[in-house]
């Protein structure tokens, strides 16, 4: 298979039970408002926030004592004690204790991957209902002991006598006492996510003005969505917060233009990425209720949208072949080809705003003839995303981005938008989700109104 080629699709069962795939629908979602790091959720753990988001979902859809088929969620910044984070959240919730759960971790794509994995299980008939989700806290981040101290502590556990213990302890050096805090740096390159994106932003010649405009639209759209009551049945207040605390309804292009660049300052070209057009570290959690049509009907619950298909991709960013956050650029053409669709067949585009530069570099790559031919294996450019259909109710630049929680935020909001739109030109309204992730990965998905 070439790097641009398509997977040979459709496993044909040769014998045994052949089941018709059924639909997996989004019933609805619930999240807590996202809070800037060090804000309202400073003392709240991942388990706290995931349980809070779950509680709101359970209350909204009357799921008390219900045995859900499966719950999958995850966190990117995760304490080792939270190995069963999702199951623990389920046990602390009013769901039936007989509800199984598992953790997923695919960096910022975690939330969307839980939706796709669970939707597939529903389509296969393995489960009838599911809750997908994600949570992250940059405030309550795990801090590890240094590698030197860790080794000494483990060795200490293995020896028996006092002289042996003293010998082990003598290996300890003062520098070993410094704790090891997590960061957003890529292990293989040592560059932070922002520095990686700065390289991509410069490569695609994305201007400061274009990035600021995207950030401005994100705040404006999110503020308008709140004012219109769009989030009334998507968010439950938590710890006194009723709106995403990063939202600046009164920001302006002029204000954004005054901010100093924070990433890419050592590049030869002009540094364009500021705190205004980059996503801040954020705390929060989101959940999405998925079901078969039959389960939703039996529980008298809405069916907002169907999860049609999803695709993951990864790029070789380590040696600079592609930008760290550019994997969705490759995932989307493969997903469209498999489903016989073009960018013109969509009514909503939800492209996660890790940085304004990420979204704009992605769009630029899709609009580029040469890139389409040489890298995507197409006859020319993939196409143009109609900006009036892009992140119409705001995205991560305004809402914030608690890594694993972003997928659930987007899927729940998009499902609601699709349901409201209904049909377009005789076909169901259709939405494309694109989420980039650390490690040079990306996950994308198609949803249709139900």
């Amino acid at each position, binding site marked *: 298979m070439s790097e641009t080629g398509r997977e040979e699709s459709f496993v044909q069962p040769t014998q045994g039970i052949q089941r018709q795939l059924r639909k997996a629908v989004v019933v609805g979602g619930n999240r807590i408002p996202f809070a800037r790091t060090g804000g309202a959720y400073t003392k709240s753990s991942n388990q*706290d926030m995931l349980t809070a988001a779950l509680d709101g979902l359970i209350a909204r859809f009357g799921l008390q004592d219900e045995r859900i088929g499966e719950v999958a969620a995850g966190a990117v910044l995760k304490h080792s004690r939270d190995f069963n984070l999702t199951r623990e959240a389920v046990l*602390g919730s009013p769901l039936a204790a007989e509800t199984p759960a598992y953790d997923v971790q695919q960096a910022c794509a975690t939330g969307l991957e839980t939706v796709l994995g669970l939707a597939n299980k529903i389509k296969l008939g393995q489960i009838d209902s599911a809750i997908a989700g994600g949570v992250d806290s940059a405030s309550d981040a795990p801090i590890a002991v240094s590698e030197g101290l860790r080794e000494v502590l483990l060795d200490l556990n293995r020896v028996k006598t006092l002289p042996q213990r003293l010998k082990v302890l003598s290996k300890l050096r003062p520098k070993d006492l410094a704790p090891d805090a997590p960061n957003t740096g890529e292990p293989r390159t040592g560059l932070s996510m922002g520095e990686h994106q700065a390289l991509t932003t410069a490569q695609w010649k994305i201007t400061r003005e274009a990035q600021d405009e995207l950030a401005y639209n994100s705040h404006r759209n999110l503020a308008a969505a709140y004012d219109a009551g769009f989030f009334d049945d998507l968010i439950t207040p938590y710890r*006194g917060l009723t709106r995403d605390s990063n939202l600046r309804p009164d920001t302006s292009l002029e204000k954004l233009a005054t901010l100093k660049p924070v990433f890419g300052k050592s590049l030869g070209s002009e540094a364009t990425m500021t705190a205004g057009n980059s996503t801040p570290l954020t705390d929060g959690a989101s959940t999405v209720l998925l079901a078969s049509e039959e389960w939703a009907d039996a529980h008298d619950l809405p069916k907002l949208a169907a999860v049609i298909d999803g695709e993951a991709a990864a790029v070789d960013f380590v040696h600079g072949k592609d930008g760290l956050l550019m994997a969705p650029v490759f995932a989307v053409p493969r997903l469209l080809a498999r489903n016989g669709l073009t960018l013109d067949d969509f009514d909503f585009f939800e492209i996660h705003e890790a940085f304004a530069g990420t979204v704009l570099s992605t769009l630029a790559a899709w609009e580029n003839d040469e890139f389409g031919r040489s890298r995507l294996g197409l006859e020319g450019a993939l196409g143009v995303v109609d900006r009036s259909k892009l992140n119409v109710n705001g995205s991560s630049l305004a809402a914030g981005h608690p890594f694993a929680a972003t997928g659930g935020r987007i899927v729940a909001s998009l499902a609601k938008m699709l349901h409201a739109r209904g049909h377009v030109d005789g076909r169901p309204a259709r939405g494309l989700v694109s989420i980039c992730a650390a490690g040079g990965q990306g996950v994308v998905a198609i949803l249709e109104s139900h």
Partner: protein
Amino acid sequence: MSDPGPVVMGDMPSLSKLYVNAAATAARRRLLGTDLGTALPESSHEVRGVKVDVEKLTAYQHLIGEPATDVLPAGFIHALAFPVAMSVMNRDDFPLPLLGMIHLRNSVEQRRAISFAEPLDITASAMNLRGHRSGTQLDMVAEVRSGKGDDVLWRGVSTYLAKGVFLPGIDKQSAHKAAADFRPPNPTALWQLGVDTGRAYAAVSGDFNPIHLSALSAKALGMRRSIAHGMYLAARALADVGAVKGEAFNWEVSFEAPVFLPARVALDITTVQADGGAWERSDYVAWSPKAGRKHFTGSVTVR
């Protein structure tokens, strides 16, 4: 007896000052031999518009193992109301010595969920002074209302014993019926309580009674080691019952042998379901796996 109306306090009383004052009062009474009287104060004490510190709430929820939702755990409300009750027991006309009183029973009615954002009016009064085979007991009753209405949302009755104090005119209760032999069931949980258990609960509840803080401070008050707070143990049992209890429930606990720290405590929770499978109640019992001695029993019941 006419109701004199509540004494409205401007601010939440400070527990540490109350403890210091209680110690001073005890010393003064011992020196002067003050006649304590045989009646409870008629006045109730009230603090209005109490606001919950969300950081304290989160710390409490983490320590007890309650999900960190915006709903106040029933045991947190007990801790919130405790200084008001203490202020009543600290009054000059309170007939029993506050220090050294033993918490015998606690009974809470959680009538509806209370959000941390609601300002609360908290009232406390002393009632039912009566005899006990080894002293004198009474009930401290706390009631919590939302600042917006008259309905009592939470009501707690804490029964305390002043051991060895016999007031004239108050009959001794007849001898306690012999405790049935306790045969420990298979536990559903085993708690490992470190020596810092009392300090940790003191930090989230504000109850810095010296008998809970360290072996040294406990010895000063005649205990052989520090003991766990009863309401810490009961609150953990309540948390273990879980979300099945819903938003309105009754929660009872009777304390038997104190838990000296450090300790291992075994717990058994038995769930009783109504016809049709709905949760009706959870009964719990905790004991020392080493001594086989019962520490406390209680229940959480649907309202």
